[in-house]
């Protein structure tokens, strides 16, 4: 299967400024228990020699790391007990591997376990100061193709930042410069002065976070459920049809509604829908640059009206999602940030541990990551681990050849439920191609 060649540490080309420390924001600290894994599949390049591409990528990784001192730093606790990154130049871990066959063959019979073998990851050490937070694995396919596995702790980056880092790496390999330099800044500070004394903080969002933080239920200490991931590709016209059916203007809301209804059915809910939270990127709402490096994902519970006729359940679900999305605006997020600043918790929560999580990762643009001119990734898969609770749905962009409206949905559920989902009538109405699972 996969032969591991070596493991080493890649450091930046210029030494980091000594003694620099970056504190983590409130959103960062919530994500301590999670990590992200991304796999990029690239078609065969002209360079047939094994190891040549790996060497080139390793060198360009060194160059790009010079601009990301946070990525090469290490976690340390500040005096107040909160995490910070000490920019000590320790580097990222890189694993080089080789496997037989070609990329195309691999993609035909890949599943979750196999795909996760393409990404190396190590859980936090007892002494986090010596634990690398970013890992890269380069797997060369003997008959052509390359898989780049990228993983990182969710404490430092969300999927948007991770994708941005890999894009910066690709830009550096291709042209020697980054097109979108990173932006390392804290979250916007709470508004001072001119605060309406009668202003009521948006309690719903805060309550959702409060209940998640206080939730110490055994659901996430007990992990014997066997989760499986399926990748469903919905073509452009199908997504459009779904949008028309639900009369929602946004593909995410339509897809989220659809998946919500179907997952509720396979979970055995005769009436109503299971509890679901959506997870959205709030960079635009907070007025942050797209290159903001760090966590900016906010979770919000979706509230829906109970007991409806089966036919319009889909529209109601999508409508509820849409309402939740609209409710996440600047003011409410700022209130949440302020609440989080003043509320310390002893144990970090598992943000994706209870409800069904539906994350909107449509705008990440991973297919613009080109390491070599003209070689667009065949596929990009995302995982937010570990998955506990009901399950996880990630709504992603499809390769550009499929059209702008097409979507790829990665659904992670217990094995038996997932197979039922793929046979569900409502899902099959939109004719998805099952790429994996």
């Amino acid at each position, binding site marked *: 299967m996969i032969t591991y060649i*070596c*493991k*080493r*540490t*890649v*450091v930046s*080309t*210029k*030494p*980091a400024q000594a003694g620099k420390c970056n504190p983590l924001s409130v959103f960062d600290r919530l994500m301590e228990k999670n990590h992200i894994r991304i796999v990029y599949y690239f078609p065969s390049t002209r360079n047939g020699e094994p190891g040549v591409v790996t060497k080139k990528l*390793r*060198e360009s990784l*060194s160059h790009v790391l010079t601009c990301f001192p946070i990525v090469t730093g*290490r976690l340390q606790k500040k005096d107040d007990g909160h995490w910070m990154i000490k920019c*000590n*130049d*320790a*580097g990222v*871990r890189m694993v080089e591997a080789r496997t037989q066959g070609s990329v195309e063959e691999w993609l035909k019979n890949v599943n979750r376990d196999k795909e996760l073998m393409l990404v190396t990851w190590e859980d936090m050490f007892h002494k986090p100061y*010596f634990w*690398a937070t970013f890992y890269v694995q380069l797997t060369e396919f003997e008959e052509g193709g390359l898989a780049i596995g990228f993983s990182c702790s969710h404490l430092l980056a969300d999927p948007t930042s991770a994708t941005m880092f890999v894009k910066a790496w690709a830009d550096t390999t291709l042209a020697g410069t980054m097109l979108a330099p990173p932006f390392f800044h804290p979250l916007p500070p709470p508004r001072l002065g001119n605060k309406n004394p009668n202003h009521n903080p948006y309690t719903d969002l805060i309550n959702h976070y409060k209940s998640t933080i206080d939730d110490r239920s055994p659901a996430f200490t007990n992990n014997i459920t066997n989760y499986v991931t399926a990748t469903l590709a919905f073509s452009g016209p199908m997504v459009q049809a779904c949008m028309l059916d639900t009369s929602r203007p946004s593909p995410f809301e339509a897809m989220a509604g659809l998946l919500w209804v179907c997952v509720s059915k396979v979970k055995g809910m005769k009436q109503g829908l299971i509890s679901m939270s959506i997870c959205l990127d709030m960079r635009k709402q907070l007025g942050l640059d797209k290159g903001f490096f760090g966590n900016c994902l906010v979770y919000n519970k979706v509230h829906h009206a109970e007991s409806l006729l089966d036919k319009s359940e889909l529209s109601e679900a999508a409508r509820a999602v849409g309402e939740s999305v609209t409710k996440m605006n600047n003011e409410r997020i700022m209130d949440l940030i302020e609440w989080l600043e003043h509320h310390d918790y002893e144990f970090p929560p598992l943000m994706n541990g209870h409800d069904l999580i539906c994350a909107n990762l449509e705008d990440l643009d991973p297919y613009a990551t080109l390491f070599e001119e003209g070689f667009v990734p065949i596929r990009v898969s995302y995982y937010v681990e570990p998955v506990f609770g009901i399950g996880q749905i990630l709504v992603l962009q499809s390769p550009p050849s499929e059209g702008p409206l097409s979507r790829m949905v990665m659904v992670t559920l217990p094995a038996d439920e997932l197979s039922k989902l793929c046979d569900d009538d409502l899902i099959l109405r939109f004719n998805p191609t099952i790429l994996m699972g």
Partner: protein
Amino acid sequence: MPQILPDFSNSVKLKYVKLGYQYLVNHILYLLLVPIMVAILIEVLRLGPYEILNLWKSLHFDLVQILCSSFLIIFIATVYFMSKPRHVYLVDYACYKPPVTCRVPFATFMEHSRLILKNNPKSVEFQMRILERSGLGEETCLPPAIHYIPPTPTMEAARGEAELVIFSAMDSLLQKTGLKPKDIDILIVNCSLFSPTPSLSAMLINQYKLRSNIKSFNLSGMGCSAGLISIDLARDLLQVHPNSNAVVVSTEIITPNYYQGNERAMLLPNCLFRMGGAAILLSNRRRNRSRAKYRLVHVVRTHKGADDKAYRCVFEEEDKEGKVGISLSKDLMAIAGEALKSNITTIGPLVLPASEQLLFLMTLIGRKIFNPKWKPYIPDFKQAFEHFCIHAGGRAVIDELQKNLQLSAEHVEASRMTLHRFGNTSSSSLWYEMSYIEEKGRMKKGDRVWQIAFGSGFKCNSAVWKCNKTIKTTTDNPWSDCIDRYPVHIPEIVKL
């Protein structure tokens, strides 16, 4: 305030007295010659031209006498010129600059140490303390094989490192000097710890297609001072072979010698030794005289191996688990001091000006005859040399020599900065230091440079070079991208 002034004026007076004394003794011959010449001139003027002519006529020279004396003069002149040792010129040298991707910051080194020695936290702590006080910077480089977790020091990787370092240095040297590989008559390679078959010199001959009648030598096992031993060998060979070019390659291959055990005395080299190499072109051809950078004046070699403690102070052996490493004994500094004293005793009379030698002699006689309690006079070597290149063996070595020779911070700057930027690159560190001095624009025509190297055995070798022409700064040297950042202040302890 009044108390300070008299001291100040005293020290100023002392300084002038000292200067006056030095000038007097160093130029004593000229000072004696001038009155004699004046006396002769006065005598000649007094005698008048007519008298001188009479004097000349009274000397009866017949043909035989004139012929014999002129033959004698010619014979003596020929013998003198033939037996004069040939001048050996250093045309140019090139130092290897490791790729930036081989950089090893402190944090990475410590993490790897932890991962590899996970059962020995005490050894890891020890390495951390050494690294904090080592005087190394964050830009030193280790070869690729050592970056792996765990390191893979195979023979193939060692050969790979040797090829990378030696060929890069050679290519750089050939380009700088315009030398053609076919013109190399003598080739000497020194690498202490890696000695494959065929030798590294054979590897060079194969790569560059050197002549079949080349005189090649491969010195191994001779430690960090092997660079100067190679220079000495090259010099001796150039005395025997006229009109020749000699290339000396000094390097140390780190890959096979990364100690993987946990004996503390053997972990020290892991922390200090780094990748590096240098290639030097020496020549005794007349046409290189004008373009050569330096002329070799003296090489002095001192070997303290007869003493058991000195012999065992840097010893390669197996530890309790059978892992091979180089063990450094605790009295390394003391032995180094002794070896240095020996070396100075030999080199002193060759290089010191007459004033210093006289003072030393007087103090010696005084101590022996009058009062043994007199402080021994340490000759002031700053008067004999403008620049010092002390082997960057470690911070302690440089500190010790600075103290013993009473050198200022600027004199040892080249050594300290080389240790900071490149680490201990063993025999090639002297050349990185020379390069530093040149790139700072401090090397002027007529400047004398003293290179001191220590090595296992225990050896202390010195070389004295005289600068042949003022050296302009260039861009094709290992310091080119960072010279503006130096000198840096190196703290006593770097907090990791």
